[in-house]
């Protein structure tokens, strides 16, 4: 149990996908302008990360590894994720239209999101069990959510500030991201010592 909590908290705070692993930077910079789109995008990412792990972990463990096909990982995972996202979208549209309305537009974007492919590959690389892999995916998704929501707050402040001409737009956003990321460095070592 302690191990699961450590995995969850490290995924959220220490190895934060956006701010320390640099995965999923595109949506982080692209969709973080407004709080509601940031929330929608991150909820969709959490959802797809969990689904993708639930699908890819068994495929790797019971299908690819026993047959010596481990090297097909990259191709199989990206295809599974792409197909899964399509499937989820169709199912949501048919059965839970309200959820589709709030998450639907973000789902197709996630297919080529490196955070989702990254979490599935890392789960295998770290040698997690199924439960650990699911917890890690949940933590990674929550970490993405936290970073997106925090950063959309930072950005709304940036909108109204007078920045030097050459820093307008992306450069000042990146500098703000650097400071946000700096705040996450403070979590280093906290989680391990919490349970020591």
């Amino acid at each position, binding site marked *: 149990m302690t191990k699961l909590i450590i995995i969850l908290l490290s995924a959220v705070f220490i190895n934060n996908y956006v*701010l*320390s*692993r*640099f*995965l*999923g*930077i*595109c949506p982080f*910079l*692209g*969709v973080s*302008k*407004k709080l*509601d*789109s940031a929330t*929608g*995008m991150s909820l969709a990412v959490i959802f797809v990360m969990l689904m993708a792990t639930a699908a890819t972990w068994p495929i790797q463990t019971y299908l690819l590894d026993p047959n010596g096909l481990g*090297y*097909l*990982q*990259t*191709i199989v995972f*990206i*295809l599974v994720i*792409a197909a899964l996202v399509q499937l989820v979208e169709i199912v949501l549209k048919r059965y839970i239209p309200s959820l589709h309305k709030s998450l639907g*537009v*973000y789902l*197709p*974007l996630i*297919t*080529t*999101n*490196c955070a989702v*492919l*990254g979490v599935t*590959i*890392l789960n295998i*690389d770290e040698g997690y069990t199924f439960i650990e892999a699911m917890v890690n995916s949940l933590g990674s998704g929550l970490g993405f959510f936290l970073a997106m929501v925090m950063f959309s707050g930072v950005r709304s402040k940036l909108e109204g500030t007078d920045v*030097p*001409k*050459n*820093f*307008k*737009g*992306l*450069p*000042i*956003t*990146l*500098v703000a*991201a*650097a*400071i946000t*990321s*700096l705040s*996450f*460095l403070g979590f280093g070592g906290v989680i391990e010592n919490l349970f020591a």
Partner: protein
Amino acid sequence: MNTLQNFSKGLIKENPVLVLVLGTCPTLATSTSVTNALGMGLAATVVLLCSNVVISALRKVIPDKVRIPCYIVLIAGFVTMVQMLVKAFAPALDAALGIYLPLIVVNCIILGRAEMFANKNKVFDSAVDALGMGAGFTLALALMATIREVFGNGTFMGLPIPVLADNHISILTMAPGGFFVFGLLIAAVNKFSANKPKKQEFGCAGCPSAEICGKACLNNGEEAAVND
């Protein structure tokens, strides 16, 4: 457009990292040392070259409706090949790049060039475009890695630099330094391309999901700046 222009546009005018702002994830993650940056640039260039050539050769065969899935499968195949080659011949680089090597699959530069260039142009032009873009990517990565390694670690390609080695700013090699140096570089690019005032927003031009992305933002009452 002649061959030379076709090649050189990727280096400066349409530099994929600093001007088009594509492939930010590997740029930030692997620019901690010059050696890693060169390795990543080379690996991505090889994948880009292969995918551009094959996609251009198959541009009349691949049905328009399923082109993105086809491109992804082709790219994933080449990435797997590169991954195996790196594992076999440069295990140290494989360990250093780690997860970012398989993640070349979702690098926007590669899918972007397939979508924007290779499916409309001849094989030779596509190959030249791939080499130019690959060189531009490698150059930008190397530039960023040089700044981060020299000032953050006091070394250049592992060799210590006299004064800086004792007075390095370690934060530059950590995550915040990546964002910071990247921001400064883009600001510098803005400064020197100031004669052509271009509204620089996040560059999704080459991203295959740009169209949907713009819609997603519009639906939420956000201006379509992301999609510019």
